[in-house]
């Protein structure tokens, strides 16, 4: 039940005054956005129609308190389908701007910059799918420098900037380089010799899996069953977070192959994460084959929201490919 004395038209005006918020009242609540929403497939409680409706009524506290306004990943799957042509992710951004002004903070972690290391090279500002990073000139340790600055309203913690940063200045809670490497090597998994090194009878596969491909706790429990002496699954916030250094590190140790699983083309939550992940893997494959090694040792696979059961099959497929890999020592030098 909605009480009319809770309605705050000032809130509606405040949202509409924000850039992107002007279309708030054009919504006629058809629900097409909810039907196409990718986040909703994993988070059934998330409903963009409802948020727009509540905001349009002026339910200030109810809208600002809810965690859903921070969950929209601005993939814009709903935008081309909305019959009223509302850019819903922009409206969400406007609502978040009001929330931040009112003292609310994003519940999720956001990317953090170590300003003492940052050179202001602008790699992260280009990498960010949301334009959430700007370069600002400020005093750092007593000297005037230009460094990256993350807008906490716009950052949706995909980790693409963390992988992209060539100075190691970016980090993301629970997905920092150190944390990922410790998950890759937990229980000494990386230190056991691989199939190509003549150790394990079966190829050993490290799989980096986008967390949106596997989401619920039940599914992770099921993944735990998949973990074995020959399979190690590590989740990433997005396949765009995959770092070439980590892939190569795994290959220098006990992993025969590295599989990176991202969302299907057009379903990536973070707009360009899948493309970036795929490009990185393609490039790593190219440098391996240029060095006389088999490019099959690193592979990228897509997994849609509805075919998550494919993960074990994907892993056994790469393991199968790895059985046919020749080590470079056997490749003719004059080739």
């Amino acid at each position, binding site marked *: 039940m909605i009480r009319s004395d809770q309605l705050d038209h000032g809130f509606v005006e405040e949202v509409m005054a924000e850039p992107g918020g002007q279309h708030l009242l054009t919504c006629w609540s058809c629900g097409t956005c909810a039907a196409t929403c990718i986040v909703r497939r994993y988070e059934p409680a998330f409903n963009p129609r409802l948020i727009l409706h509540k905001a349009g009524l002026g339910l200030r506290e109810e809208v600002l308190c809810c965690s859903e306004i921070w969950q929209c990943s601005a993939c814009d799957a709903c935008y081309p389908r909305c019959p009223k042509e509302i850019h819903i992710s922009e409206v969400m951004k406007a609502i978040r701007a009001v929330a931040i002004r009112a003292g609310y903070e994003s519940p999720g972690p956001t990317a953090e910059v170590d300003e003492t*290391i*940052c*050179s*202001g*090279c*602008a*790699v*992260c*500002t*280009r*990498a960010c799918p949301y*334009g959430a990073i*700007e*370069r600002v000139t400020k005093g750092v340790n007593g000297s005037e*420098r230009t460094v990256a600055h993350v807008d906490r309203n716009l950052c949706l913690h995909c980790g*693409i*900037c963390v*992988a*992209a*940063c*060539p*100075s*190691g*200045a970016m980090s993301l809670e629970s997905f920092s380089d150190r944390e990922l490497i410790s998950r890759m090597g937990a229980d000494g998994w990386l230190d056991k010799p691989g199939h*190509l*090194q003549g150790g394990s009878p079966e190829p050993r596969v490290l799989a980096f899996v986008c967390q949106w491909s596997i989401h619920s706790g039940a599914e992770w429990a099921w993944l735990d069953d998949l973990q074995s002496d020959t399979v190690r699954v590590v989740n990433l916030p997005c396949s765009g977070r995959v*770092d*070439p*250094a980590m892939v*190569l*590190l795994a*290959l*220098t140790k006990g992993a025969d192959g590295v599989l990176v699983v991202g969302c299907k*083309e057009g379903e990536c939550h973070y707009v*360009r994460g*899948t*493309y*970036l992940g*795929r*490009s*990185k893997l*393609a*490039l*790593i494959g*190219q*440098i*391996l084959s*240029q*060095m*006389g*090694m088999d490019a099959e040792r690193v592979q990228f696979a897509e997994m849609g929201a509805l075919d998550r059961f494919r993960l074990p099959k994907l892993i056994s497929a790469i393991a199968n490919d790895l059985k046919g890999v020749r*080590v*470079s*020592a056997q490749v003719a*030098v*004059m080739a």
Partner: protein
Amino acid sequence: MGKLKLGVYWAASCGGCDIAIVELGEHLLDLAEVADIVFWPAATDFKCEDVEAMESKSMDLALFNGAIRTEEDAHIAHLLRDRAKVLVAFGSCAMEGCIPALGNIKGPDYALYRALEETPTTDNPHNWRPKTAFEMPEGTLTLPGLYKQVRTLAEVVPVDYSIPGCPPNHDQVWKALSAVIAGDLPPTGSLLGVDSRTVCDQCPRTREGKIRVSRFHRPHEVIPDPERCLLEQGLVCAGPATHAGCGALCIKANMPCRGCYGPPDSVSDQGAALMDAIVASFDGQSDAEIRQVLETVVDPVGTFYRFSLAGSLLYRVRMSELLSGQVCDTQAGGNGGEEVRS
């Protein structure tokens, strides 16, 4: 206190590092006041036997430039490690392999085949190859054996400090030498002669920050705008993944940074860091578009690992399958005049 004893050696290098020392200019006179040069094959007439005759730890500082490619390189690396109190990997070759280490992509047998047979201008009807020993009426002539891989100095002997650069900037060399002379050295294992952070920190160009690239150009294909970020103009500039220290020399000459100062402090693999930075600047909203951008990155190993291949994670993936320190097959087989199977 007596004068310091200083040694300089070149292994697999181009000689640019020796020039970097000559480039000290008037500082050479300052150096001569406090130090005696006891070994420097590029400039003085001391021989290897002179170093062999020295006592252990009798040299205060040895600047070793060049990668380890031959048995002789390794021999002198061990010798200088023993004779010198402080051994410095001087320049990119000694520190991370540099251009000579690109030979690791195809290996020394191919290098000899290419140089002595494959090039159109080569006339070698008997397919001669250099042997490690050759009998002549006057006696046996010897050549050092080529190893199967080019290694960094630190892969062969423990190294105290490294000075990056291809070659190191002479101002930075003087800064490092001054620290040695003053006895004011940082903890062992540190880099000498560098500045904080990356080349971008010293680059005077403007970065718009949001421009992505829909194709990459090689430096000879375009004349870039001298005011704007080279990466944003579609040139693979290694600046973001390269330690500061050179003062952005190449960039001021309107050429993209090639990455000779090695990775910044918190990064282990320069090639991987650069690769990710380049991919992040790809433009395109679909797989097909991004693949088109990818195709314009020519020679990825030579581009991303131009200076750092020998010590890189990438090469370690392959090294795990090869035996370190073996002489290449062409020479080990002693096939000086025989035909080489290809």
